[in-house]
């Protein structure tokens, strides 16, 4: 399990975890945007590995993925992006979020070492429950990478035990039944399930899906150890005019959320 990840969750402070798709809005801008996110106050970066068939994502991230693929982004170039980021930042944890097939095609056996070498700290595969990932998880473990697993509102007790047993780094709580970017968040509903996770695992719990501004982040932070903001940020970046604008938007957006979290 990644030391950088565990270090990034600090007692009494809600971790802020922005999500961006690698290569969107522009391949050359991603590393700068990553640094800007850190500047703005991000504690952990979640990089989307674009996939042609992102079943669990809403339109914002789908379209972002499509644009990135058109620009030639691959799992390999994602690793290069992390490597480049690590030239200046050896501290902020970076996890990859994506789907199984690009990893499969990269080579399930080769991927953990390559990812570790590039400076990746963890992997979240949306369409890969722990039952299907035992071999992969071991290999990641060996390379010091975390296996970030999801818990959903529909997850029943037996599975919850299993997931809590298999997860490392942190646990990602999906805040509602739905896809990324949907508008269904009910922050108060998070308390019970997150408590259920905490009663089974020492790992920090971050919540994601539907958090799109300072206000919703604040509401969620009341119950979780971290908040993930995806679609809202991706959308904001997609509308940026140039690199400088994108970098500025990234920094300012994260900073505003950070501030709200710190003030709560």
């Amino acid at each position, binding site marked *: 399990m990644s030391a950088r990840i565990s270090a990034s969750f600090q007692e009494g402070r809600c971790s802020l975890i922005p999500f961006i798709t690698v290569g969107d809005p522009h391949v050359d801008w991603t590393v700068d945007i990553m640094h800007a996110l850190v500047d703005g106050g991000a504690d952990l970066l979640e990089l989307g590995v674009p996939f042609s*068939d992102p079943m*669990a994502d809403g339109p914002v991230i789908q379209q972002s993925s499509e644009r990135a693929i058109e620009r030639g982004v*691959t799992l390999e170039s994602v690793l290069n992006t992390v490597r480049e980021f690590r030239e200046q930042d050896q501290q902020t944890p970076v996890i990859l979020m994506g789907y199984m097939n690009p990893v499969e095609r990269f080579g399930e056996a080769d991927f953990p070492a390559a990812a570790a070498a590039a400076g990746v700290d963890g992997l979240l595969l949306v369409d890969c*429950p722990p039952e299907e990932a035992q071999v992969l998880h071991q290999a990641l473990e060996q390379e010091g990478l975390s296996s970030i697993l999801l818990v959903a509102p*529909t997850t029943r007790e037996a599975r919850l035990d299993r997931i809590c047993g298999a997860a490392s780094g942190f646990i990602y709580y999906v805040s509602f*039944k739905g896809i990324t970017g949907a508008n269904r968040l009910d922050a108060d509903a998070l308390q019970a399930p997150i408590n259920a996770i905490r009663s089974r695992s020492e790992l920090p719990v971050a919540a994601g899906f539907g958090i799109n501004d300072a206000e919703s982040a604040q509401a969620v932070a009341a119950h979780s150890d971290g908040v993930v903001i995806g679609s809202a940020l991706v959308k904001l970046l997609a509308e940026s005019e140039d690199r400088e604008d994108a970098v500025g938007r990234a920094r300012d957006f994260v900073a505003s959320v950070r501030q709200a979290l710190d003030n709560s």
Partner: protein
Amino acid sequence: MNAQVQQTSDQPDESGHFGEYGGSFVSETLMHALEELREAWLRWRNDDEFMARLDRDLAYYVGRPSPIYYAERLTQHCGGARILLKREDLNHTGAHKINNTVGQNLLAWHMGKQRVIAETGAGQHGVATSTVAARLNQQCVVYMGETDIHRQAINVFRMRLMGAEVRSVTSGSKTLKDALNEAMRDWVTNVDDTFYVIGTVAGPHPYPVMVRDFNAIVGREARKQMLEQYEELPDALVACVGGGSNAIGLFHPFIGDRDVAMYGVEAAGRGLNTEEHAASLCAGKPGVLHGCRTYLLDDQAGQITHTHSVSAGLDYPGVGPEHSWLKDEGRATYVGVTDEETLAATHALSRMEGILPALESAHAIAYGMKLASEMRADQTILINLSGRGDKDVQTLAAIEGLEL
């Protein structure tokens, strides 16, 4: 006829693995729904009343059993093995697809799910789902790629006649695989009251098993009919493979009959050596798509590639995991047939037997004709005529430069 399930192989394992294929690759939100579905299917498939109701629906609504027809002129034309056709084209709504939806929609009904959703490419599965949904008074939403909605306007209209809502999908290639993604998104969102009716033996466990079981009526009937009418089993089975449901439906009850050869025919489109085909087993690699590990068509980065086939129902970059397993095991052989060969077979069957096959099924006919001509006259081939070609008349006309 008898919808009871009889096991003829020990695959898959409890969590839906056929060797290294299959499994459940979905987001966590759906894991419970899949478990619920597995339990429901385990329960109801052993429930006498449920199975009796299914048998009745297959008999009186679908019109089963479908006959086995001796294609005498085609046989003479090929000059080899006797060619028999399993007439799934005679089913209500015109294809094998309804064997599955009659089953799944009934299961949904027993599970208390009032809402069913489905994805569709050519529209056949959408029509089959909305048809049964109408009958069971279920709310029905069908996802369909924007491109397909335009190409298959007639089927869209048919679904709407049945009271279904057809939702246009504008992401990705705007075709079948994107409709599937979108249906999954709907399911994730409405998982409590919604049953996702998948149209082929793909998807996460238990779909590949459940859809196979529903379609295995084809092979069970065929096996019985062969013994009754011909007093022997066929030497070879031939079926087209899109997702693979009609093929597995025919093959499965024969898996234990080691002397019966099995041929799955994929869409070779403009040729397996081009990029324009949909032959995952012939030209693809194992990967993960739409909930299962299986052979699929992707690029070096693992992005699923756009496929091509003259037949919309085969135009899919994945395939059911059981076929991947049968291929690796060597129990079934998978081959490709091009668009051109398919069209020739369509015309041949029309002119020689007065049967217009679905373009999907015409792939099987084309390969069956080739195979027959290489076999002896005392041998027999059973081809699954998975559907009728009425739905393809516009496509055929367009190829000849006509507008109907």
